[in-house]
């Protein structure tokens, strides 16, 4: 990054090639939209380039990079949530006398559907996406980027103690949500053991 700061464009290309994949994956798991994740990753690289003159190597480059990425992702998630809320607020009010039938299946039904379809990946992605955005970012940086606590705390601008508490709450939620995959029901376990 110091070479980029000195005006070496080839070094920027090196950073781009090295970090594009982890960055796009982090952002994809944050926003669950591939096109948006790529757009956001481009924003991150552009910000890195524009801020190159002000870069001070006080922390690891990845910490700085993911701090920018986390801010971009959190802003995007919040903006999208705000837009969705506006759409919902602007939607016509349903007739209270004749409410529309709720077609959401029970949680067990949805889980069963997922297990039957073996769409475990989608189920895991949804479980992660259901976490509050800061918990989600903490889990993704901890589990997939394998950052240490000090780095993640810097990225998310919190203390290490606060981060450990954040991670514990996040994994507790995931433990409950992913229980059907972690401890599958007995008939399914029998099916899985059966040779195909």
């Amino acid at each position, binding site marked *: 990054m110091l070479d980029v700061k000195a005006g070496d464009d080839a070094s*920027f*290309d090196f950073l*781009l*090639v090295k970090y*594009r*994949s982890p960055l*796009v*994956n982090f952002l*994809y*798991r944050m926003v669950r939209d*591939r096109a948006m994740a*790529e757009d956001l*990753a*481009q924003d991150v*690289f*552009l910000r890195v*380039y*524009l801020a190159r003159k002000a870069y001070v190597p006080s922390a690891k480059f990845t910490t700085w990079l993911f701090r920018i990425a986390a801010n971009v992702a959190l802003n995007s998630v919040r903006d999208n949530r705000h837009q969705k809320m506006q759409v919902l607020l602007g939607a016509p009010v349903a007739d209270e006398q004749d409410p529309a039938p709720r077609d959401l299946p029970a949680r067990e039904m949805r889980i069963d559907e997922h297990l039957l379809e073996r769409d*475990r*990946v989608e189920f*895991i*992605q949804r479980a*992660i996406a259901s976490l509050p955005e800061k918990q989600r970012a903490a889990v993704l940086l*901890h*589990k*997939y980027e394998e950052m240490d*606590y000090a780095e993640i705390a810097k990225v998310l601008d919190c203390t290490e103690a606060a981060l*450990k*508490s954040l*991670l*514990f709450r996040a*994994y507790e939620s*995931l*433990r409950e949500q*992913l*229980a059907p*995959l*972690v*401890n599958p029901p007995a008939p399914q376990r029998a099916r899985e053991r059966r040779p195909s």
Partner: protein
Amino acid sequence: MKCEKLSKEWIAYMDGKLGAADRGEVEEHLASCAACRARAEEFRGVWRVMDELSEIEPSFGFDARVRQRVAAEPRRNRFAWFVAQSRLALAVVLLIALTVWVAKRPNSNSTPPTRPGATAASEQDFNAIKNLGVLENYDVVTKMDALSELVPTPKQHPSLQTESND
């Protein structure tokens, strides 16, 4: 160690980042608490399940789009401050010139300015006229009765004479 206290140590314990003393304390608790043992097993299961997520690859044109966006950014010129200063200086000069021009602009209500050369010529003419010999005795000349006799009196019209007779 109690179950609540363990909640603060869970993640570091699972990561294998606890010190020897703390780790021994946690393991001692797990040996005696079936619920926490089960929980530890579930945490490990969650991490195993999360490993099933595969990674995605950035699309083919990703690098090109980043480079394109970087290239589209205006490059900062080392002499940008100088260009800005020059523009400011030019603006100041133009403002001063405008002020001077407005101040020197002829006012329509005031008398037209006289040229220095024209003033001198007028004074010369005035002195020449003042010294003319004829004009020295202008009053005397205009009151000379003898001159009036030289001028013939106009004859009256016959019609007017008749009317006067009536």
